[in-house]
């Protein structure tokens, strides 16, 4: 069974796939920063940023349908944002006979546009970079080793834990457990406790296995291609565009 992370990656060898992961992480981050500081009235800046995201997604190999499905991740934010014009105060405008706050409409646009662009940047990163590479990229960016290790182990064991949970659920169902009401939740709570203990014990065994292969407390350095100047320049381009658009919009 493949985990969710498996579905995010689009196998391919596009120029974006070939960029070093650390450069892509920085690029996506800078792009998101640029987008988030862009004033909400600078619609043209958002439009240009959207072109950048669409181009990058196209190069990564997203098909339109696929992209739409993945953008669904922003729906919870959008759902909330849609209410703002209804509840915000200030000047009103009439749309289809409903009074909407102009201030609220801007706020709503702000949330939706920024969330969508940010998601687009993450989708480019996730679609072009296998998780192990993201983990390595974080390591090369000097993110503290402990945090990198936690991410790496989470990635490695999340599937196992989810599978284990699914097995527990099947075993409960097989013995007639069919929770419908809150007071039937006790077996779920206790099994969560059992899962915790099992995961903890697994952690001990994994640590034993690491010691057996000479682990001394710090993750060893392993061989990987370092980011080249062109990797950095290409990735930084995305960030540079959004940042300069933001600056331009702020100045005008």
């Amino acid at each position: 069974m493949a985990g969710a992370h498996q579905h995010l990656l689009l196998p391919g060898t596009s120029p974006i796939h070939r960029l070093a992961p650390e450069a892509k992480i920085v690029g996506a981050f800078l792009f998101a920063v640029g987008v988030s500081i862009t004033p909400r009235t600078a619609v043209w800046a958002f439009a240009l940023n959207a072109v950048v995201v669409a181009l990058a997604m196209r190069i990564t190999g997203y098909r339109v349908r696929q992209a739409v499905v993945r953008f669904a991740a922003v729906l919870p934010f959008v759902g909330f944002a849609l209410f703002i014009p209804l509840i915000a105060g200030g000047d009103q405008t009439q749309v289809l006979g409903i009074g909407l706050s102009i201030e609220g409409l801007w706020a709503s646009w702000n949330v939706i546009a920024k969330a969508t662009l940010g998601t687009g940047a993450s989708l480019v990163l996730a679609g072009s970079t296998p998780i192990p590479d993201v983990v390595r990229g974080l390591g090369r960016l000097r993110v503290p080793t402990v945090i990198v290790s936690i991410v790496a182990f989470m990635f490695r064991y999340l599937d196992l834990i989810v599978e284990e949970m699914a097995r527990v659920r099947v075993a409960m169902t097989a013995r007639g457990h069919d929770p419908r009401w809150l007071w039937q939740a006790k077996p779920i709570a206790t099994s969560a406790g059992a899962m915790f203990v099992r995961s903890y014990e697994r952690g001990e065994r994994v640590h034993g296995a690491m010691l057996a292969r000479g682990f001394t407390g710090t993750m060893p350095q392993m061989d990987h291609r370092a980011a080249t100047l062109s990797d950095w320049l290409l990735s930084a381009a995305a960030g540079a565009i959004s940042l300069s658009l933001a600056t331009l919009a702020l100045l005008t």
Partner: protein
Amino acid sequence: MHSTPESVAVEDLTFSYPNGHAVLDQLSMTVKPGEKVALLGPNGAGKTTLALHLNGVLELQAGSIKVNGIPINEDNLSEIRRRVGMVFQNADDQLFMPTVREDVAFGPANLGLTKEQQAERVREALDAVDAIDFVDRTPHHLSGGEKRRVAIATVLAMHPDVLVLDEPTSGLDPFGRRELANLLKSLDLTQLVITHDLPLALELCPRSVIISNGRVVADGPTPEVLADSQLLAAHRLELPYGFSPAAIAQPEP
């Protein structure tokens, strides 16, 4: 050859877990260089606990262990861990890195090898277990048999002198078990194989040791040990239905 030290020499090893449960009781045994020995015994006999001592994952409480004449202690723990390769029962516990390549390189990297040497070790170890095609896969997407082979590669990459395998065939389908048995036969290393799979013991290991209640209760040529049905029954062991060790050609010593 007269002064060659024993590959593994365990003397009066005694161990209890923190909850007071005594697992090993003055256990002593030796393994000669190049020997392949099956460790048999019921669940809870102390086989895995013994294995965890052999490369220093569990700390010595009483008794002594020498590997190639080197006593296990704080000072030479890293040397012992290089010399004794431990393959754990559950491959998911052993394969903890995001990719097979990094997992196999983990041991060599801990040994302080250069990146080129690490890459060479990875290639060579995965070749030995016929798993070079998995090098960029993530371990949890491999099948049980594939995981087991990669787990062995992670240990081979450290160039050990002794291989300790904890129930290497448990949970494998018959063909996976066959591949594993052939692989272990092809590896020219001292091997200590913990197993409930008695035909495997007969096929791979000329010598068998039965451990029960933390002590060695039998030690001899595998065909003889397995022919003693009373001895086997006394220690919760049983040959598969219809299996007769006497009817099978004996392994070359």
